[in-house]
């Protein structure tokens, strides 16, 4: 009898297995920890993330590089461990680590400091890892659901809070609905090709499409349903309605985590499916992407203008960023010479992780015993209450707006560059226009922080974990902005682009 799983399969998935073990360990140990020592769970979770990152490096990245292989498959070709997957794994782990640091004091204030919170964060990272490494739709779907179900619970973690409840309910209903649509699209692709493996799907679709002027109508329906599911997951207009509600109601540290890691995972899945699996259908889905990205930029930027709730404002801002990233996909795919668009998306996701988590860290620290602290009025006069945090927040906001010496600039730069290179001049100018537009609502927050009087003039206490999270995010935002070369190299490496030039040579 053939052996299905070998030791090397388990060795390849060691980071995932370790994270699962740490999460189970937290669930178990939590029972013995008294209520005032719950921070210990956060320490365990943080160590788990570090151990998992070490395992990614030692067990996967180094052996791959040593053997000179571009990729390795595991679990009967269900999992593809290439540089793309490794890049995203690091990204998820970094996002989870910062989110854990942010959560400790927040959960204490909310009186909901349970070990399950950290265990669920780790479980959702396990799901994300399966999504980024999955090359089989079965694995991608399970990873997606593992991530999503963990996130539903995390959004509703403040059980007695009516807003948290409502957010969880809306997220659950729309998330499950979109998973259903997504799975239906996958079933049609399975029917067209007879395989659940994305590579096989791509080959058979290409063979079927060859010599035909128009795509098979079933393939178009399958593409539409699959893409709808994917757009729901990355929260693109018109499938974005869940995002502002879920982001506003969720515990603030969780909102930060959702807007970076969960979103990055959805992007990894989207790129895997659209670029690896459905590449033959690219002529069909590019017009769709153009429409969705214009709608997303317009809708989100307009809606963000009138927001007075900080979490909601940043939710709309994160939707707007999805609009810019989608343009990168319009511009090019990894197998063509114009891979700059995909490169732009990966850099964007990297810098977005740090700058957005930083901004959410500041908002999280506004939560006090008596103050919910997510309205624009609550951040007013922050400069007099916590000068360092106010300046860091300004850095994050400027970076989100894409001001040059900061990290956010490079995300936008590569995407706009790729648009111009692929001769999408109208789209490029539209995107630049919206980016300028976005400056207004970011500056609204900055204006409140520096120009307005604080309602509550007491000094804002910042916990050690929060301070660490803030400084890591600020450091990364500044370093990527000032010296982006190693990060661009990392992105090139993750896409397997051999020729690596200095940044200057990219401006032709």
């Amino acid at each position, binding site marked *: 009898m053939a052996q299905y799983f070998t030791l090397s399969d388990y060795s390849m998935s060691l980071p995932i297995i370790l994270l699962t073990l740490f999460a189970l360990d937290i669930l178990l140990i939590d029972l013995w920890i008294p209520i005032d020592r719950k921070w210990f769970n956060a320490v365990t979770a943080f160590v788990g993330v570090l151990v998992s990152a070490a395992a990614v490096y030692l067990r996967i990245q180094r052996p791959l590089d040593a053997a000179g292989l571009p990729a390795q498959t595991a679990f009967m070709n269900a999992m593809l461990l290439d540089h793309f997957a490794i890049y995203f794994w690091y990204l998820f782990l970094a996002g989870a680590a910062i989110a854990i640091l942010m959560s400790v004091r927040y959960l204490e204030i909310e009186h909901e400091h349970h070990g399950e919170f950290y265990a669920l964060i780790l479980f959702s990272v396990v799901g994300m890892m399966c999504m980024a490494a999955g090359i089989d739709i079965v694995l991608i779907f399970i990873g997606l659901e593992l991530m999503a179900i963990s996130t539903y619970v995390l959004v509703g973690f403040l059980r007695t809070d009516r807003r948290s409840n409502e957010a969880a309910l809306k997220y659950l209903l729309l998330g499950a609905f979109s998973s*259903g649509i997504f799975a239906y699209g996958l*079933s049609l692709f399975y029917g067209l090709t007879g395989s659940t493996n994305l590579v096989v799907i791509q080959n058979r679709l290409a063979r079927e499409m060859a010599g035909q002027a128009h795509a098979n109508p079933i393939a178009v329906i399958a593409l539409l349903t699959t893409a709808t599911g994917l757009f729901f997951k990355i929260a693109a207009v018109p499938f974005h309605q869940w995002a502002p509600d879920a982001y506003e109601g969720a515990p603030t540290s969780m909102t930060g985590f959702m807007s970076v890691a969960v979103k990055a995972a959805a992007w990894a899945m989207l790129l895997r499916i659209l670029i690896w699996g459905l590449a033959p259908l690219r002529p069909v889905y590019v017009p769709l992407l153009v429409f969705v990205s214009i709608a997303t930029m317009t809708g989100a930027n307009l809606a963000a203008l009138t927001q007075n709730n900080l979490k909601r404002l940043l939710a709309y801002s994160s939707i707007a960023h999805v609009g810019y990233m989608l343009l990168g996909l319009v511009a090019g795919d990894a197998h063509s010479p114009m891979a700059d668009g995909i490169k732009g998306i990966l850099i964007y996701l990297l810098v977005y992780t740090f700058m957005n988590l930083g901004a959410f860290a500041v908002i999280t620290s506004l939560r006090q015993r008596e103050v919910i602290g997510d309205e624009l009025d609550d951040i007013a006069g922050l400069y007099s209450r916590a000068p360092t945090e106010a300046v860091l927040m300004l850095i994050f906001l400027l970076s989100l707006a894409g001001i040059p010496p900061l990290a956010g600039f490079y995300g936008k730069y590569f995407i706009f560059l790729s648009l111009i290179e692929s001769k999408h001049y109208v789209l490029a100018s539209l995107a630049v226009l919206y980016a300028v537009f976005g400056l207004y609502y970011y500056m609204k927050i900055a204006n409140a922080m520096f120009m307005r009087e604080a309602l509550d003039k007491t000094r804002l206490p910042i916990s050690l974990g929060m301070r660490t999270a803030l400084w890591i995010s600020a450091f990364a935002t500044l370093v990527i902005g000032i010296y982006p070369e190693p990060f661009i190299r990392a992105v090139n490496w993750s896409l397997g682009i051999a020729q690596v030039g200095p940044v200057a040579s990219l401006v032709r």
Partner: protein
Amino acid sequence: MVPLSYYLVLSGILFACGVLGFLIKRNIITIFMSIELMLNGVNLSFVAFAAQWHALSGQVFVFFVMVVAAAESAVGLAIIIAVYRTRQTLNVDQINLLKL
């Protein structure tokens, strides 16, 4: 033997019923059941295609969809109970604290 298209039409109808129910129903439990209906449409389509292609992977997918649906209902019902405890209603129109 029943031709493939019959199964596909049935699965499409099941799926459409689920989508329709999700959009027009106002009770959370009913909406939740509509989502299960959608997933059953997906399952039927996978099984039909698996039989057509004589490939097992489609049937394996169905098992996982069923597991996922069960996990989702466990979590979903827990959230619905939490919502009910804080609001004493299961009508989605009255769960409207968060809006523009």
